[in-house]
């Protein structure tokens, strides 16, 4: 187990565009991190640099304080699970799981015990003596996963969307099992995913990436409550944050004439700056009784299980709000209550307050 420090790391695959922009990054020992971002933003590139499969064009990689930039993958002692299953077809399931231990010179009885543990965790016990060749994609990925988890002395565990090819109904269970395995070993884990729910449930800290750079890192709660910019706001949450232009009147910020945010929160913002309000769909509700609310007309509603996502029009803007299924709301016109302390202020796309 070790901390990971990427010192001024940048990487380009021989083109002018950097797949990973120069950044400084620190992953603390024993914590679980989720790397979240769209396809092609450089997540796999970052993992491969950490594990040494890729030598970065710029910067240094430090593992537990030691510079390992030029150290071979094998010597870094890092476990990595790829997005698509990789199994050694000429070996049995047992041999596949035992191979990493075998390479590190463990003795037979210790290997057998450890492989049995991992096989049990992943439900592969009955398959151990089979050839890895004839397994389904699901089972092959379980083996890949098992090979990643089997060593309990690794410096770090990197997982690159390990559950993409897994059947949805198994995903939930597996996520729990991976977490369980990690809680025992307390490795430094970097977990790449497309799936924000996965990121939010798994990780102590989430890093949101876009086009080769980390846009924001923080706890799941921080990312949800205070996205640093419009991109993170849109990306985190489902549906993403609403962004509407505010009217500034007498120092107050108003939405369709209704004051939402007091002048005190606008301090330090240039008086002529255009302010955009970021409002989470979770923080909008229908106003009750005589309560003052933002007038809106309801456009449509989609069923999301226990919740409804309602599309409303406020002036020329569209907002989405989440309401419980059992809340009755008027058809056509409605008034919205917005929790104003949850509203975030953005100038030029960047969070200011």
């Amino acid at each position: 187990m070790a901390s990971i420090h990427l010192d001024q790391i940048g990487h380009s695959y021989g083109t002018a565009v950097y797949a990973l922009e120069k950044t400084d990054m620190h992953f603390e020992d024993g914590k679980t991190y989720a790397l979240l971002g769209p396809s092609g933003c450089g997540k796999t590139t970052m993992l491969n640099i950490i594990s040494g499969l890729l030598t970065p064009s710029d910067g240094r990689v430090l593992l537990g304080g030691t510079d390992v930039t030029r150290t071979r993958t094998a010597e870094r002692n890092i476990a990595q699970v790829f997005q698509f299953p990789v199994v050694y077809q000429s070996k049995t399931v047992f041999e596949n799981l035992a191979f990493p231990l075998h390479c590190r010179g463990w003795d037979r009885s210790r290997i057998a015990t450890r492989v049995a543990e991992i096989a049990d965790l992943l439900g592969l016990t009955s398959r151990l003596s089979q050839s890895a060749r004839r397994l389904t994609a699901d089972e092959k990925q379980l083996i890949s996963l098992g090979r990643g988890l089997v060593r309990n002395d690794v410096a770090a565990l990197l997982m690159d969307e390990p559950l993409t090819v897994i059947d949805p109904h198994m995903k939930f269970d597996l996520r729990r099992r991976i977490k369980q395995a990690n809680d025992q070993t307390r490795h430094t884990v970097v977990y790449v995913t497309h799936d924000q729910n996965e990121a939010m449930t798994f990780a102590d800290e989430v890093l949101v990436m876009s086009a080769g750079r980390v846009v924001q890192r923080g706890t799941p709660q921080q990312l949800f409550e205070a996205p640093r910019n419009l991109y993170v706001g849109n990306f985190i949450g489902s549906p993403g944050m609403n962004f509407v232009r505010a009217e500034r009147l007498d120092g107050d910020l108003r939405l369709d004439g209704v004051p939402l945010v007091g002048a005190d929160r606008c301090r330090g913002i240039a008086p002529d700056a255009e302010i955009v309000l970021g409002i989470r769909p979770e923080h909008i509700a229908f106003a009750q009784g005589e309560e003052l609310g933002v007038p809106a007309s309801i456009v449509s509603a989609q069923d999301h299980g226990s919740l409804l996502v309602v599309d409303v029009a406020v002036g020329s803007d569209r907002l989405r709000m989440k309401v419980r299924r059992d809340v009755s709301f008027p058809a056509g016109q409605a008034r919205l209550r917005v929790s104003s302390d949850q509203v975030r202020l953005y100038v030029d796309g960047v969070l200011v307050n």
Partner: protein
Amino acid sequence: MLSTLKYIAVVLWSAFVVAPLLWALTTSFKTANGVTGGPTYLPYIGFEPSLDGWRSLFGGAGGIDIVRPYMDSLIVTSSASLISIVLGTLAAYGLSRFEYRAGFVKNTDIIFFFISQRIMPPIVLAIPFFLMLQFLGLLDTKIGLILVYVALLLPIAVWIMVDFFDGVPRQIDEMAMLDGCTPFEAFWRIVLPNSMPGILVASMFCVIFGWNDFFFAFTLTFTDTQLLPVAVVSLNSSVTPWWSLSASALVSVAPLILIAIFVERLLSRGTLAGAIR
């Protein structure tokens, strides 16, 4: 209906393939009279069987001793194939996985350089090979022939294996390195065991070429060393000895048939199918 047609086709094809072998087999037991007496197939009924043809292969009347050329051919073919496969596989793995650059020369250029060796017709190569072996004092030796065959087989081996390794996902090597292998161990312990199908195909090409080559064996050896194809041809005389030629044809083709059966066994066991992914 369809399966009937299929069986008819299979039977016809088998007849087509087996008939020449059958013909050679019966002829090898005939004498001059038996050969010229029209088509006959059943020993004792159609013709009087004789072992003359087979005897002539072992130094019998009017024949030559085929045992030594046979052994020479086995040694030369297997050594040349083995060397080509070992070197070719290593070279191909390098070319498939690592980037080489010498000025404007890159991997694809190197691969083309290998293949381009086979563009020239053999006759163009014969004279340089002759001169080189002469210079080295290796004319008319097995070592000399092995060197020449390696030069001829290596491009085939490299070409087949590069293509094969390119089809093996890189992640397999990467995974092996993550599991604790050095790059060479990853190749040796993981990629190689998974690459048997490619190696088998490449070996087959090499062995078949080496075993059947007449031209270079004929031009580069004279008396001390003689390979099977050359020896077989020297069986010929003013009266064509069909019986000896048939017998020699059968023993010549035997190793290739054995290889074919062996490969077919592996294929039908599914050992080769989907070895990777």
